[in-house]
């Protein structure tokens, strides 16, 4: 009581000083981040926006003098068959990868959350592909799937002829998708696991007293209680898949082949910006990507309601 009064008196007599202190402290604490964000994010974002209306090549020197072309870069993108192909590939990749990996991740999370023997082992085993470099993963998969690789050797035991998986324009993209699911399902599993552990046990106990079976409990308790987690995973997974680059780059040695079958939006942005030096065009591609991600996130937010901290 006495202490509180003391604090109160201090506060009231120095109210402006305390406020000032809070302000100084607050801004000191966020200063490194604010500087970094201004220099390496907001500034460049602003420049990228302007560049996207210019025809600018890095080799030309000053970007101030680069010619203004209005919406030409954006118009060009939608009549550029390679960009359209990249967009299509990225969409197929996302539509294939997101639901598959989230369902698989939820199933794995339920497994490692249940009463099984060797829980820690399974959690670790399922998570390990997540922490491995995508470059390492891509090279491993190239090795496993190469024409005289172990997969073909294995299939050969059943009389299947060896196949050059990554050279097939129909298979290259699906193989990258499988690789991505394999490599990242552990991350979503861990986040689901954390979500599952927050659901109070009493809910399940009450339900089982009421005679609900495991499936009914899953549908009526687990899924609704996990809704924010599902939303979080969906957003992160979607944003991640739309930014796919590493796997496509490594598998195709940087060119998106065979025949652009593994060309993705970010790979194309990279090629336009840093191989062809069409930097204005690359910036326009970046903004198109941003708009797509923004719209998809908003749709999901609408669909899932506002009940998340995102």
């Amino acid at each position, binding site marked *: 009581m006495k202490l509180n009064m003391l604090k109160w008196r201090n506060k009231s007599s120095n109210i402006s000083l305390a406020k000032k202190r*809070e*302000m100084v402290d*607050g*801004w000191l*604490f966020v200063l*490194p*981040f*604010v500087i*970094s*964000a201004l*220099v390496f*994010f907001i500034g*460049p974002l602003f420049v*990228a926006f302007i560049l996207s209306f210019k025809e600018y090549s*890095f080799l030309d020197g000053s970007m101030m003098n680069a010619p203004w072309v209005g919406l030409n870069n954006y118009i060009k993108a939608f009549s550029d068959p390679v960009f359209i192909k990249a967009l299509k590939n990225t969409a197929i990749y996302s539509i294939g990868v997101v639901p598959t990996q989230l369902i698989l991740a939820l199933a794995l999370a339920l497994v490692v959350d249940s009463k*099984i023997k060797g829980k820690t082992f*399974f959690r*670790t*085993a399922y998570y*390990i*592909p997540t*922490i*491995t*470099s*995508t*470059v*390492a993963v891509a*090279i*491993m998969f190239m*090795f496993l799937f190469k024409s005289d690789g*172990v997969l073909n*050797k*294995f299939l050969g035991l059943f009389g299947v002829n060896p196949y050059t998986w990554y050279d097939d324009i129909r298979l290259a993209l699906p193989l990258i998708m499988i690789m991505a699911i*394999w490599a990242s399902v552990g991350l979503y599993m*861990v*986040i689901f696991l*954390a*979500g599952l*552990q*927050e659901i109070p046990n009493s809910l399940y106990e009450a339900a089982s007293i009421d005679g609900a079976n495991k499936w009914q409990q899953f549908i009526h308790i687990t899924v609704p209680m996990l809704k924010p987690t599902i*939303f*979080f*995973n969906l957003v992160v997974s979607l944003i991640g898949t739309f*930014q796919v*680059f590493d796997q496509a*780059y490594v598998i195709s*040695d940087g060119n998106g082949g065979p025949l652009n079958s593994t060309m993705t939006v*970010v790979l194309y*942005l*990279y090629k336009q910006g840093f191989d062809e030096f069409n*930097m204005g065009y*690359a*910036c326009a591609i*970046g903004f198109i990507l*941003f708009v797509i*991600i*923004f719209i998809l996130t908003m749709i999901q937010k609408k669909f899932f309601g506002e009940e*998340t*901290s*995102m």
Partner: protein
Amino acid sequence: MEKKKKLKISRIIFYLIIIGYALVALGPYIWTFITSLKPTSEVNNFSIDFSTLTFRNYKFLWNKFPFGRWFINSIIVAAIVSLGNILFNSLAGYALARINFPGRKALFLAVLSMMMVPGQIVMVPTFILLTKLGWVNTYKGLTIPFLTSLFGIFLMRQFFLSIPKSIEEAATIDGLGRFGTFFRIVLPMAKPALATQFIITFNGNWNSFLWPSLLARTSDMYTLPVGLNSFQGQYFQFWDQVMAGVMILSIPSIIIFLIFQRNFIKGISTSGIKG
């Protein structure tokens, strides 16, 4: 009796499935590791001749290529970036959670909005900026732009919101200033969140490929992923050595994860990043 038997069978099938998926997850590593120990002539053989397995490939990579240098570059970059992130994201996250300063709400909103912007948008201007600064092909270029992260700040803010205010109030009454309270009281309590952040940041930067492949121009500045990818082309026929390279790239992340894993799951559940 019948029911019990049925239950047992379903249990066995269940374990077969979860062991099967563990094999799917770990199998490629096991095969990669075995291949890395094989002589070149044996690489394409399904069978394993244990008497021929050696660590010769690792020695060879280390001696013939700047693998040691790439390894050290990767360590330097990942360590500096992780330490920077732990410090700066915690400071910012704490201010956003606890300090009442004008602009706090707007700043938090800015963090959330920026999280939705794909990083690749700023790739071109940032690269131009780093070129102008003369930071391309330097450690500065590989580290300084990545010292803070939006996700890390969000994570730390969520964590600091979850700890009781009374602890800081007690510290203030004991005469500790804002920085003292933060470094001596609050930060030590944040170990699980810091461990989570450390794992995510260290791995993210250890494995990072897109930026280092732009910023590291000469072989002596390559990080491991860039160096390993540079093997593409004629070198990709010596798969035993390439697989040794894959293991060198993979093992440190796995070790770091195994060390911190207990804190990792705890960190995720306490920071409320799952939504």
